[in-house]
């Protein structure tokens, strides 16, 4: 059973996934994906870190495209291996690999729900929280002011959404594409994790009845 958890910044998605993972005794893949991608490709991890869950829409981003102005592009279609698109391809291959090797695991973000959309039995979850809770949690974790935290959260979520929307042609947070959307402010992080576990267990039970 492969669970992908997409989350708003500061919603406690990471903490919740750790609880769920411990409960089932499975792995959580978060920043570890960067390490694996670096290993897989031979490229230094800093490039993957820089490109993690963000796609820059600014002036500098297009400069990575090796498309020449006349529209010729590259005859080989090779382009730069350091471009966001190339790095994403590597990371997505890593995610697919993981899904094949490990029958059960949790993957956080990185468009995993889209990348693994054809995997049977995939469970996709989206965790949100009220803005106040998120600001408080973020500010406490990073030891900054509430105002700073709020602006970072808004920017971070926007970045994450751009990243997701660019690479998946879906809309980040669109309930239609997730099996379960849950607001962690209502039951707290432990409570949310419990509910998710219940949901997953029900799904497994339903699957067994049908098979």
């Amino acid at each position, binding site marked *: 059973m492969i669970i992908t958890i997409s989350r708003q910044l500061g919603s406690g998605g990471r903490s919740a996934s750790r609880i769920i993972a411990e409960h089932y005794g499975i792995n959580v893949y978060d920043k570890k994906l960067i390490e694996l991608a670096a290993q897989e490709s031979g490229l230094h991890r800093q490039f993957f870190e820089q490109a993690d869950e963000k796609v820059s829409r600014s002036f500098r981003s297009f400069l990575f495209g090796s498309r020449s*102005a006349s529209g010729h592009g*590259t005859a080989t279609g090779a382009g730069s*291996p350091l471009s966001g698109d*190339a790095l994403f391809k590597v990371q997505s*291959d890593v995610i697919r690999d993981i899904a094949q090797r490990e029958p059960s695991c949790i993957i956080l973000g990185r468009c995993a729900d889209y*990348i693994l959309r054809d995997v049977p039995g995939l469970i996709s979850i989206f965790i949100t929280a009220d803005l106040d809770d998120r600001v408080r949690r973020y500010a406490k974790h990073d030891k900054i002011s509430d105002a700073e935290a709020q602006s970072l959260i808004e920017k971070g979520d926007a970045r994450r959404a751009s990243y997701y929307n660019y690479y998946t042609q879906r809309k980040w947070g669109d309930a239609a594409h997730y099996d379960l959307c849950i607001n962690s402010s209502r039951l707290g992080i432990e409570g949310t994790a419990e509910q998710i576990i219940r949901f997953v267990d029900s799904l497994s039970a339903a699957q067994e009845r049908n098979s």
Partner: protein
Amino acid sequence: MTGKAVPTELGTEKISKLLAKYAIPSIVAMIASSIYNIVDSAYIGHGIGPMALSGLAPTFPLMNISAAFGAMVGVGASTMISVRLGQKDYRSAQQILGNAFVMNILVGVVLAVVTLSFLDPILLFFGASENTLSYAREYMVWILLGNVFTHLYFGFNAILRSAGHPDKAMKATILTVVLNCILDPLFIFPWGLNMGIRGAAIATILSQCVSLTWQMRILTNKNELLHLHRGIYRLEGRIVREILSIGISPCLMNLAACTVVIFINRALLNYGDDYAVGAFSVIHKVSFVFVTLVMGLNQGMQPIAGYNYGAERYDRVIKVLKLTILWATVAMTLGFAVCEFLPRYAALVFTTDEQMLKEIVRGMRINAYIFPLIGSQMVIGNFFQAIAKPWKAIFLSLSRQFLFLIPFLLWFPTFWKPALDGVWFSMPASDLVSCITGFILLAVQLKNFRKLINQ
């Protein structure tokens, strides 16, 4: 990108072999388009006359602008399709294809309508004179009427390339070039259809249409993973916005390059005459042949330098840089030799008019002074892009085409005697300054590498 994201041979295979493997296809494609560039002008210059040749000059920036907007769709769509195909998301890829199709048509139509409405003032602004306006207009009207086909043709080529069919894209390009070479004399010359400069435009459009038909046959083949079919043509705001936001940058880069040509045309007309304007278009095309060789080399270098930089194999990075600079310098020195020692022969390809020949020879010699050095500048600029230092890349590219040229262009003729020479000399002067900046930036980067290697 389909297939493996990062071919690891980039880190292990011999550098010279890699460069050959990645650069040669690009170079071949580039040579095809250089020939394409030359053919129309050569036939028009010989078939009609020097004034027609000068009449073509203001149409080039206009066609470039049109190409820039077309590329906006083509580059944006092909980038997105490439990403989707990498995720085996064929449904989305086809949607993007459909949207690109519609967008190309829309952009083509709008551009054609707007430009046709203001054609004369635009051409005059771009460097046409009363002597050359009729030629420019006649050519451009027909080009614009076929604009939609041109956009579709280039757009599909970009998409074919990113969809894993670079060979088919190359074949389409070669087909267009060959057809144009055949049709041009047939349409232009008195012994053929005798359509004059109009014939050249029609031949160009017709060749593109034939290629377009071939492309569409490929893209409507149900067995292709990516094919046109009903239902994909509905424009989706998200896709349109994404395509445009990716494509806007190559579009702007192209527009910047056009602006320079417009400035130069106007300056040449101001301090010289129509012959100077026509001469420059010839000189530009000849030097472009060699520039495209370097561009092809650069495209081959990109993945190699980028990968090895990412893998911290700085020794290999320096190696591929050196090798590329070497070959680029060879290419540009070849250009230097042609321009300095054989300018008359190069000019004779385009015209036999004595006054035009004299002007071409003079300008070509001056223009090529710094050629042997400029190859390395181009490589260095592209190198910075490959190793993910985009600001330096953009700075070097702009400094070669734009930053120094414009001020020199405006300033030199004010004190140079004769003033027209001032216009010609501004080009190698700008080349020289941009080379120096390139070498400085490179020296700093190499020092960096040495430090990293020693760590």
